[in-house]
């Protein structure tokens, strides 16, 4: 009964806090002149940014409630990793970091997360569970290195899914729901697995859900790098503490497809001036894919290659792709924990 109440609180506290505070926070951002251009509108409009600080505050409130209620460091570690990523993102929002500096600094988010394993050795298990066939032998050092590396990779993947109205909020909400289902199945089907790990996912669901109200088309708020990096780092931390790494990878396949763009950029680094733009806004006001064969294969370009679209149609397509990936993620969790 108490656990049920804590689970509701873990979701409801950040959700209603953000829904309640967003209007006054956005007014304050507007008063201070923190506005970003929404480049895909004709004519371009100004939108308050960054919403990251409020989103992080909401996440902290939820995770603290779980930490106090369940007496565990799991949510503290998640908040610590997300907090470092948030701070790096906020610095980037205000002063702009170099293209290589940001990913390198994000390793500190992973280090902040794993360092708490000193205080609570059960923070994460050093084995990986695979669908149907079970788990690997535990390798603490290898797993810890992989966990640290996961933070910059996943945080950047989320950051790159933050280009259009509602894209990042839908992506964070759907992937965190897939993560929640995975951890819930593990809690139900593996004896001794603490409910607190499932509870730790709920603040992320609450924050993403509340943000969707203000970020969906037409956006009233942009999260900035402080928000998108925080979402990614929290997702990575929760996948590790929940022990649902494989399902988490499947859920973010659209972001992985999007990140092939990075590989294209790396390959084209020497001749980067020759890299064509992946998409463009046509005279008809629609978004079009570049037909240059060497243009980077961003997810947006892959979708626009099906047909030219409005921004709403594009985001709807990306949401549909994310939803399908999350269905496969849930199937992975079922194959891992039920069979």
């Amino acid at each position, binding site marked *: 009964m108490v656990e049920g109440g804590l689970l509701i609180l873990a979701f409801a506290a950040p959700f209603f806090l953000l829904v309640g505070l967003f209007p006054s926070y956005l007014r304050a951002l507007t008063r201070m002149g923190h506005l970003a251009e929404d480049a895909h509108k004709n004519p371009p409009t100004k939108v308050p940014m960054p919403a990251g600080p409020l989103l992080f505050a909401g996440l902290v409130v939820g995770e603290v409630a779980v930490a106090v209620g369940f007496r565990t460091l799991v949510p503290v570690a998640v908040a610590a990793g997300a907090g470092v990523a948030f701070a790096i993102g906020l610095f980037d929002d205000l002063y702009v970091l170099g293209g290589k500096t940001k990913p390198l600094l994000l390793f500190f988010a992973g280090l902040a997360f794993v360092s708490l394993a000193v205080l609570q050795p059960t923070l994460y298990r050093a084995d990986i569970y*695979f*669908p*149907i*066939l*079970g788990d*690997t032998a535990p390798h603490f050092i*290898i797993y810890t290195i992989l966990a640290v590396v996961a933070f910059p990779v996943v945080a950047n993947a989320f950051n790159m899914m933050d280009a259009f109205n509602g894209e990042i909020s839908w992506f964070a909400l759907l992937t965190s729901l897939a993560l929640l289902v995975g951890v819930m199945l593990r809690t139900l089907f593996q004896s001794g697995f603490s409910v607190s790990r499932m509870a730790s996912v709920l603040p992320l669901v609450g924050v993403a859900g509340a943000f969707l109200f203000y970020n969906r088309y037409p956006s009233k708020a942009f999260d900035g790098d402080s928000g998108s990096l925080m979402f990614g780092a929290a997702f990575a931390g929760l996948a590790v503490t929940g022990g649902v790494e*494989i399902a988490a*990878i*499947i859920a973010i*396949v*659209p972001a*992985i*497809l999007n990140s*092939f763009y990075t*590989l294209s950029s790396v390959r084209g680094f020497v001749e980067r001036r020759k890299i064509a733009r992946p998409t463009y806004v046509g005279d008809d006001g629609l978004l079009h*894919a570049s*037909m240059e*064969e060497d243009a980077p*294969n961003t997810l947006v*370009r*892959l*979708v626009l*290659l*099906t*047909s030219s679209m409005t921004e709403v149609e594009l985001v709807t*397509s990306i949401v*549909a*792709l994310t939803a*399908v*990936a999350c269905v*496969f993620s849930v*199937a*992975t969790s079922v*194959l891992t924990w039920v069979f």
Partner: protein
Amino acid sequence: MKLFPLYMIELVAFLLIILETYVFFTFVVPLGPIPHSLTDYTALALLKMLLIFALGALWFIVLDGLTRLYVRTRVRSAPRPSS
């Protein structure tokens, strides 16, 4: 249905994970004789890690290859502007 090819790429990503899991547990995990010295143990551990990274790399290469194939097909079938 316009997104069908992209859904298929996601399905391949999912199925490859299942297939590679089978390969991992069937061939990689039981690999080699039981090591009797630290050198043998280290060599076997490194070999297994190499194979695991190869499986991971294969996943990326297949997905990247499918993405490129999709893009090439779309670009070549797109109507050309008349000059």
